[in-house]
């Protein structure tokens, strides 16, 4: 059997087809989910992809968080459904309080698109087991509102519990506190990050690196062996 991984398209989602392709390349079956869907079509995991959901004219992700598909998603994520939020997806996960903290505008006030170096801090989440802890990878980053913030108590707690999943290395592209690029929930099934692993899955395309593929192979292995 293979795993069925849902990819939600909100109006304004941009990387939905790319994410579906990455899932396919990893060997799983992508399933298109629509923001108005009231159920998740029995998928085994969900990716919330990048883009500007509903235009993001309010806070990024603030409206998407209230769309119909989020109701079953929030319930099932709390019950253990693996969910990965990439960029806008990460923003939506924080707005939905599945992950703590919030995303503000980049400190330099510009959109930034670059090949970003990251360190994998936690290789035990549902989405990171094919990495090793401490591994350095390059993943494209592209965002306007990528500055991760939370209060000190939350940040200390995240650090203490090993829930900082990814950290920016060499260069902090947006002013994120403690160089945080991505985090996980306590159970390790919900992960959010600003960089785009789905853009680093083919050696010919983009930056030419495939450092993002392990996100999708990690979850596939977990689901298939489960």
């Amino acid at each position, binding site marked *: 059997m293979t795993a069925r991984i849902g990819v939600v398209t909100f109006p304004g989602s941009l*990387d939905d087809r790319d994410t579906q392709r990455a899932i396919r390349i990893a060997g799983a079956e992508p399933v298109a989910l629509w923001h108005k869907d009231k159920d998740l079509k029995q998928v085994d995991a969900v990716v919330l992809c990048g883009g500007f959901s509903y235009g993001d004219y309010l806070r990024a992700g603030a409206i998407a968080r209230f769309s119909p598909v989020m109701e079953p998603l929030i319930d099932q994520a709390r019950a253990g459904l693996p969910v990965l939020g990439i960029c806008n997806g990460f923003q939506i996960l924080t707005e939905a309080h599945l992950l703590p903290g919030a995303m503000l505008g980049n400190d330099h006030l510009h959109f930034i698109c670059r090949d970003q170096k990251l360190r994998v801090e936690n290789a035990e989440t549902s989405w990171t087991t094919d990495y090793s802890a401490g591994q350095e990878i390059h993943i494209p980053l592209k965002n306007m509102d990528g500055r991760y913030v939370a209060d000190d108590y939350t940040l200390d707690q995240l650090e203490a519990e090993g829930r900082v999943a990814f950290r920016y290395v060499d260069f902090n592209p947006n002013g994120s506190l403690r160089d945080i690029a991505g985090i996980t929930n306590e159970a390790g099934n919900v992960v959010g990050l600003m960089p785009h692993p789905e853009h680093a899955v083919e050696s010919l395309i983009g930056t030419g690196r495939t450092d993002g593929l392990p996100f999708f192979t990690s979850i596939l292995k977990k689901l298939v062996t489960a």
Partner: protein
Amino acid sequence: MSRTPLDTVEHAAATPDVELPWAELGLKKDEYERVVEILGRRPTGAELAMYSVMWSEHCSYKSSKVHLRQFGEKAPQSDALLVGIGENAGVVDVGQGYAVTFKVESHNHPSYVEPYQGAATGVGGIVRDIIAMGARPVAVVDPLRFGAADHPDTKRVLPGVVAGIGGYGNCLGLPNIGGEVVFDACYQGNPLVNAGAIGVMRHEDIHLAKASGAGNKVILYGARTGGDGIGGASILASETFDDAKPSKRPAVQVGDPFQEKLLIECTLEAFAEKLVVGIQDLGAAGLSCATSELASNGSGGMRVTLDDVPLRDSTLSPEEILMSESQERMCAVVEPDKVERFLEICDKWDVIATVIGEVTDGDRLEIFWHGGKIVDVDPRTVAHDGPVYERPYARPDWQDALQADDAGKLPRPATSEELRDQVLKLVASPNQASKKWITSQYDHFVQGNTVLAQPEDSGMIRVDEESGLGVAIATDGNGRYAKLDPYTGAQLALAEAYRNVATTGAKPLAVSDCLNFGSPEDPAVMWQFAEAVRGLADGCLQLGTPVTGGNVSLYNQTGEAAIHPTPVVAVLGVIDDVARRTPVAFQEEGQLIYLLGDTREEFGGSAWSQVVHDHLGGLPPRVDLERERLLAEILISASRDGMIDSAHDLSDGGLVQAVVESALLGGKGARLIVPDGLDAFTLLFSESAGRAIVAVPRSEEVRFNDMCGARGLPATRIGVVDGDTVEIQGEFTLTLAELREAHENTIPSLLA
């Protein structure tokens, strides 16, 4: 302009003496008289609004038309051309059943008045042209020109333009893969913001702007119509800036990229279900353009009820509704039994869609408002029979003196140290410096098909995941060359874009252009324009790359001062397998650097003459298009057969600029030897056309040399990829760190 009673056709006929504000709407007296003659009566206010925008320079090409005809008359035979000039965008066959549509347009004037929105809506407009052909947009490119990099107003205009392009394009999910950024004082009050887009479709999906089939419904969908951009085309884009006039800000449109993204998806879904008979986007001249063009290109007439147009502002008059350039709107012609499904798809995407009229048996375009007929015209007279001017043109009296001021006579560096300093100064100059600060504000990765993006010689997009089929696009233009000789300058722009496509391994297929010039009312400018068009048409004929469409932007001048004539040329190419693409960056130490082509003492219009001497004079580099074609064939063969690992075209800045870029991008240095017959200065700074550098793996050297020899292309081994310096043997050495600092710090320090 709304008045009582309603200015219907009947009312107009009964009140022949009413004076209409034709001059305020940008019409000339003889043009107004012609409208009266066509109609056999005075126009209604609504008709006048339509004629005034559609007969504007921007929409009617009235000054340029007589010259642009050459693109058709001199069109080369090409099997690749599926749709040519005259539609929203040209369409080219790229094989395997795929067709590609591409076009470049200008949004110059609005971007000076309001940089963010001007540039943003420029992207929006070109993308709608691409969708209107039936294609999914896959990439955008942005050729930009600004005033002096250190001028205070550049710091207002450039960041706004860049943020606007990014803010809009990033939100649409279109990778930005190419373009240019050029600084020159001549663009100070007239920045050039050109925007290009590429779309991909299957052959059978091509759609045209045509309203056929009586009874078919005309559906307006997308954003509501508001008061923004009223008269944008006629007033803003067709007149010279003049400080004495009131602010033109209200004539600039405001963009909503989210709405456009929905429009893309919902249009493509309607295409996929074959619901659309004809389609037109609403850009310049808004509904006036969409209705008159759809009706005049189809077989019948059209009847429209303007009351049904969804409005943002209920107080708009019918004239304003017809002239509004509110963004993110499209007009589709749909068979009656498919209307319901079309509206369902729009509803799925939360896009407002309204039937506003239908195709009729007749040949009139009739528009109604509050029950009265306010427009009754032959749509062809609005859309196609605008005035055509044979503007006088004359070679400017200063041209001879300019050409006589030979750059070859400028003092050259006397010592190796001076040469070294000039190299550093060149690669740090705003035009030659890295544009990473700008391009990193654009998403290059979205859609997951970007093979190459700036600063590569051409942007490249994978079209088919299975076969690896891809397309490449490059845009180039050098206003300094064109100022010295517009005919040659236009051909150099073509040659450079053609070469840039070939250096990445793609075969050049077709051309689009954006012709940016000053006021056509100045005979000197008109001469530049005529010469540039003649040069481009001749060049395209010789290279076998037809012009598929494009755009003319005139009146780029402030007072008496026109910009440099700036023909920007986009060349589209195809590559069978993107795995064979060739990047700019040096890949491996030990590979041999070859210089292809002939290097002559050519410094007229060069970056060196500008950076070191602030000089513009003499003649631009000679053009040899047969040589360009041969060079391209060699580059394509070498890339396909794995004989080269990197390649870079030589253009502004000459060889040293190219070597430095390849070295910095690859993080690998180069050791160069000045070949016999050349001096170091000429080798480094000459801008002779028809040249490229390539890096050849040692194992391929014999094969590569044999190929060049057999085909008669001069190929000179000039060095080797090596170390972490750029060394010119016997002259100087620069470390990559020094070069990187010089090359990458300039733009952020001026603009960040």
